[in-house]
C-alpha cells in the first residue's frame, strides 16, 4: 500500500490544536488528567504515521477520537496504573472522604461496564454523553449516520444490563416494568 503523501505541517498542527481540548475532555472520563495528556499526545504521534492523514480534516478528527478513546481504555485496564492514578491525581481533599470513596468505587464500576462493551458501543455512549452529534458519532465509528440510533439503543440496553448486574440497586427493579403505560 502506498504511504500517504506528507501533510503540510501547518495543517497538521492546526488539526491537533483544534482537536486537543475536546479530545482531552473526552478521555478524561476514562483516565486521569495526566494520563489523558499522555493519551492524546500518543494519538497525535500515531496520527503522523497513519494513512488517514490523506483524508479530509473531519475524518482525521474522527480517527483521533476513536484512537484516543481506545488508547485510554487500554491504559485503564492496567490495574497498576489505576492505583498510580489515585496517587498522582492533584485533587483537593474531599469534604466527605467516605462518600468520595463510594463514588470512586461507583466510577470504577461504570468504567468497568463500559470496558465490557464492544468498542463501537462504548464509544457511541461516551460520545453521545459528551454531546457529540449523530453525524460526528457516525464519522468516529465509521458507520452510516442512520445506524447511530440502532448502535446507541443497543449500547444503552447492554450498558444498563451489565451495570445492573455489577451494581444492583433495589430502586431499579421496577425499571423492567416501566414500559407499561400507566
Amino acid at each position: 500500500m502506498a504511504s500517504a503523501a506528507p501533510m503540510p505541517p501547518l495543517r497538521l498542527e492546526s488539526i491537533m490544536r483544534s482537536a486537543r481540548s475536546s479530545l482531552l475532555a473526552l478521555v478524561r472520563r476514562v483516565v486521569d488528567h495526566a494520563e489523558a495528556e499522555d493519551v492524546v499526545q500518543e494519538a497525535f504521534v500515531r496520527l503522523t504515521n497513519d494513512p488517514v492523514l490523506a483524508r479530509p480534516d473531519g475524518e482525521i478528527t474522527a480517527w483521533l477520537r476513536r484512537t484516543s478513546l481506545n488508547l485510554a481504555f487500554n491504559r485503564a485496564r492496567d490495574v497498576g496504573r489505576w492505583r498510580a492514578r489515585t496517587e498522582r491525581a492533584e485533587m483537593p481533599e474531599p469534604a466527605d472522604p467516605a462518600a468520595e470513596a463510594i463514588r470512586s468505587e461507583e466510577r470504577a464500576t461504570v468504567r468497568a461496564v463500559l470496558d465490557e462493551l464492544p468498542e463501537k458501543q462504548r464509544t457511541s455512549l461516551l460520545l453521545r454523553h459528551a454531546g457529540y452529534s449523530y453525524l460526528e458519532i457516525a464519522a468516529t465509528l465509521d458507520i452510516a449516520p442512520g445506524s447511530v440510533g440502532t448502535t446507541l439503543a443497543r449500547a444503552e440496553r447492554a450498558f444498563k444490563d451489565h451495570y445492573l448486574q455489577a451494581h444492583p440497586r433495589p430502586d431499579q427493579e421496577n425499571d423492567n416494568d416501566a414500559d407499561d403505560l400507566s
Partner: protein
Amino acid sequence: MTLMTCPDEGTLRAFLDRADDDHATLAAHVRGCLDCRRTVRTLRLNADSVSSALALLDDEIAVPVVAGVPDRSSEAIDPPVRKRRWGRLATGAAAVALTVGLVVTPAGQAVAGGFLNLFHSRSVAAVTLTSSDASQVAGVMSQLGVTAGTPSTDFATLSSVAEAQGKVAFQIATPRASDLPAGVASTPSVRYLPKSSLTVTFDAAKTAAYLQSTNSKVQVPAGLDGEKLVLNFPDAVALTYSGSGQNEIMVVSAGAFEASTVGPLDVAGLRDFLVNVPGVPTSLTSQLGSVDLTSGVLPVPIPVDQVSGTKTTVNGHDAILVVSSGLGAGVVWQSTNRITGVIGSYSSDAVLKIAKGLNG
C-alpha cells in the same frame, strides 16, 4: 405524510434525540401507536440510566463538590479561538445562565397585579450538567414555545477603562499591579459587551403536543399559552492583561442577571411545570430543587464534561473556582450588583490572589 409501518428501534432512538429525518411524521405516528410509545419509553429509560451512570465520570472531571464557569482555560492554548471563546465567557455568569434560565423561572416579587414577576440575581450557585444535558434542555424548550432575541457575544474594543466605566452602572473591577504575575502587562485591552435579552413565549398547543408525543402525564398549566419568560443578560467589561507567550489574565465585570415573567401564570407553578417536562434531565431538576431561588441565588449551569472546579469564597462572597490541570484557572462570584470573574492561564493561587485584591 403518515407512516404505514412502525419505525425500527434505531429510528425511535434517533427520534428521542431529535436526530431523525422527519420528526413531525414520527411524532404523529408515535402518538397514535401504543407499541411505539412503549418502545420510546423503554429507550428513554435506558438512555436516562446510562446518562446518570456516565454522569459519575463527569463528576470526577469536576473534582469534588460542584462548580464553576465553563472551563475555557483549556482553550487558552488555542490562539485562533481563544479570544472569541473567552469573550463569550466575559458575560460572566450571564452567558452560562442561559441554559438554566430556560428551564427555571426564578421566584420573585409579583407586581402589577401579578402580571410581572421579577428575579434579580444576588449570588451564584453551581448546578452541574453535561453538554448532552444542555442540548437536551434546549431541544425540550423548542417544543414548548418560540424564542426571540439572542444574548450578545460580540465585544466592542474601547480605548480605556474610563471609557468603559462611562457605559456601565456597576464599578469595573481592576487588579492591583502588584498582584499580577511577573511579566504580565499592567495596561489592559478593554472590551465592552452591551446588554441583551432573550424572550421565550410559551405555546400551549405545542406544549400539549410534545407532552402527548412523550406519553407524559404532566398537565399543561392553565394560562401557559402566551406566557413570556424574559431573560435579561447584563452588560459586561472585560479587561485583558497579556503576559509572556500566550498567557493572559482576564478580569470581567458584569451587571446582575435578571429574569421576569409576563403573563397570568404563577411563577412557582411555571417553574415546577418546566422542571417536570419530559426530557429535562433528572440530575438537573434534583439540583435545582436544592437551590433557594427566592433569595436571589442564580443557578449557574456547569458543563461538567468541559470543566472542573470547587466552591470557594472571595472576600466573603460564595464563589466558584475552576481549575484545569496545567492549563489555567478561573473564579466567578457575585457581590452587590456585580458579577465578577477572573480567568487566566496561570495557577489557581495566582488567579485567587488577583481576585481577592481587586479594586472597585
